[in-house]
């Protein structure tokens, strides 16, 4: 388990992380979400003992990361996909990391196979495509067979195939019972992978909740009901009698809140009104996320005056 306790990180006058507290629970995929510059990478570096918090503490299993003698068996991390010497081969890169933690060459070969870099293991890593670099970084994170994995923006810049590969990998790691802490600035990435979300903006905690709750809390979930114009008044009175709030859209559709699709359908049936359309609209997570972080976006493009 990762525990971030009241962590603040100041760089000169600017505050990168501001009294941030949250936990990454064991056996879950926790998404670490926030706009660029929200302090996600800084927080991850502090968890790994690379950056020192100005105040507060980041702990792994109740201990500072720096107190682990062979931390790779506990935590595997991918911070930056290009963090290797471009002239060193993929295999030597991994072997050097493995040696420092007493990890066997057989394990190096295994992770190379696992990420599909077998055929290029003897090539200099500087010649790799972004997708291959990402795989090399993941291989390094997996070396110690750690129960906890941290990935910082793992899909950034990847092609669709690479994105899919990372998603599948993360789900697979979670299915093996591992804890995964993965950051992203895109909600859509989290929708399909995370169980739990920690949302930050401007270094502060905005939300810490299961992803299901965010979906439920997302305002604006509604049902669109469309009926022929002559049935509209009857439909409206039936719906409002049923306790729904109705908004008439310009195109004649009824936007119904406070009632689900089944309820609206049953009402129409009871009144003998034929339905032209009955569709539940879930407010997307992207919208929910945008609402959450709206005030926290650090750099927003100003609208250009025409």
């Amino acid at each position: 388990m990762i525990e971030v306790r009241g962590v603040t990180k100041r760089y000169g006058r600017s505050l990168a992380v501001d009294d941030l507290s949250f936990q990454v629970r064991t056996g879950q995929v926790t998404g670490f979400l926030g706009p660029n510059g929200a302090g996600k990478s800084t927080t991850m570096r502090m968890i790994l003992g690379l950056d020192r918090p100005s105040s507060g503490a980041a702990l792994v299993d109740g201990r500072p990361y720096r107190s682990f003698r062979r931390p790779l068996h506990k935590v595997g991390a991918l911070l930056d996909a290009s963090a290797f010497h471009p002239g060193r081969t993929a295999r030597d890169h991994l072997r050097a990391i493995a040696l420092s933690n007493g990890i066997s060459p057989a394990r190096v070969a295994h992770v190379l196979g696992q990420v599909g870099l077998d055929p290029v293991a003897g090539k200099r890593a500087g010649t790799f495509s972004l997708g291959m670099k990402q795989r090399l970084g993941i291989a390094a994170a997996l070396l110690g067979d750690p129960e906890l994995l941290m990935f910082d923006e793992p899909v950034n810049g990847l092609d669709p195939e690479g994105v899919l590969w990372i998603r599948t990998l993360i789900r697979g790691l979670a299915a093996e019972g591992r804890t995964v802490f993965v950051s992203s600035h895109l909600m859509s990435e989290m929708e399909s992978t995370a169980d739990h979300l920690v949302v930050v903006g401007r270094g502060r905690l905005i939300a810490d909740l299961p992803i299901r709750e965010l979906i439920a809390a997302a305002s604006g979930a509604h049902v669109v009901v469309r009926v022929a114009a002559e049935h509209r008044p009857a439909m409206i009175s039936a719906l409002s009698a049923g306790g729904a709030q109705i908004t008439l859209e310009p195109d004649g559709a009824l936007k119904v809140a406070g009632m689900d699709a089944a309820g609206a359908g049953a009402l129409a049936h009871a009144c003998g009104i034929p339905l032209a359309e009955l569709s539940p609209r879930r407010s997307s997570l992207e919208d929910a996320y945008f609402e959450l972080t709206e005030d926290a976006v650090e750099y927003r493009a100003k609208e250009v005056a025409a």
Partner: protein
Amino acid sequence: MTLTGVFASEWLKLRSVRSTYWTLGVAAVLMPLIGFLVAHGTAPAEKAAGDFDPTDAMQGAAFAQLAFGVLGVLTISSEYSTGLIRTTFASVPGRGTVLAVKAAVLFVLLLIVGEIISTTTFLVAQAAYPPGLGISLADDGALGAALGSGFYMAFIGMFGFGVGAIVRHTPGAITVMMAVVFVIMSILPQLFPASVRDEIGRYSFLGLAHGLSTITPIPEVPADGTSVALCFFYAALVLVPAFLLTLRRDA
């Protein structure tokens, strides 16, 4: 056990990149070549004139030391410029251990290679001198002169390592290292009045290099023991801050 692993890891890092072979290779070609040319071009008459020293042929160290210094810088700065240092410190959170092991592995490699290069240069040069000028390794002080340059170059490598760990940026660190080696420690004494110039010059890098490679004790340079001690002192001047900063700074 872990310490052994860290040693193995750092040794693998050093020998798995081409810059190690390039820098040491350049030094290994350049220094004996310069030694050969200097010795070959020496006229027998110079001995009669009295200003002949058979170790003059070791002056190629002035170029070879640069290659050693650059390798010293790269050993640490390349990890910072690529971001690999974060992986390294996340793997071995004991930063002091990492830095000490890196320094030790580098020093041993530089010392061994440096001694091979300088001894080779000595032998090549002495064989290339016109008859009657060359000396043998068995002659008084000859072995010390042959090994002195190798030690001096290894020292410059460690000096570069310290600068690299402080500056953490390859071009910046190489520039600083060259500025110190060539300008501050070599040319600067020339700017002082003649009365103190020699006194300052003795303790410059140039003075050390000369003192360590010469066969005849001359008043302008410190004795070998003093020179070696000064090398350690100058290395400590950058290595101590390098350690303190590495422990304190964010990676």
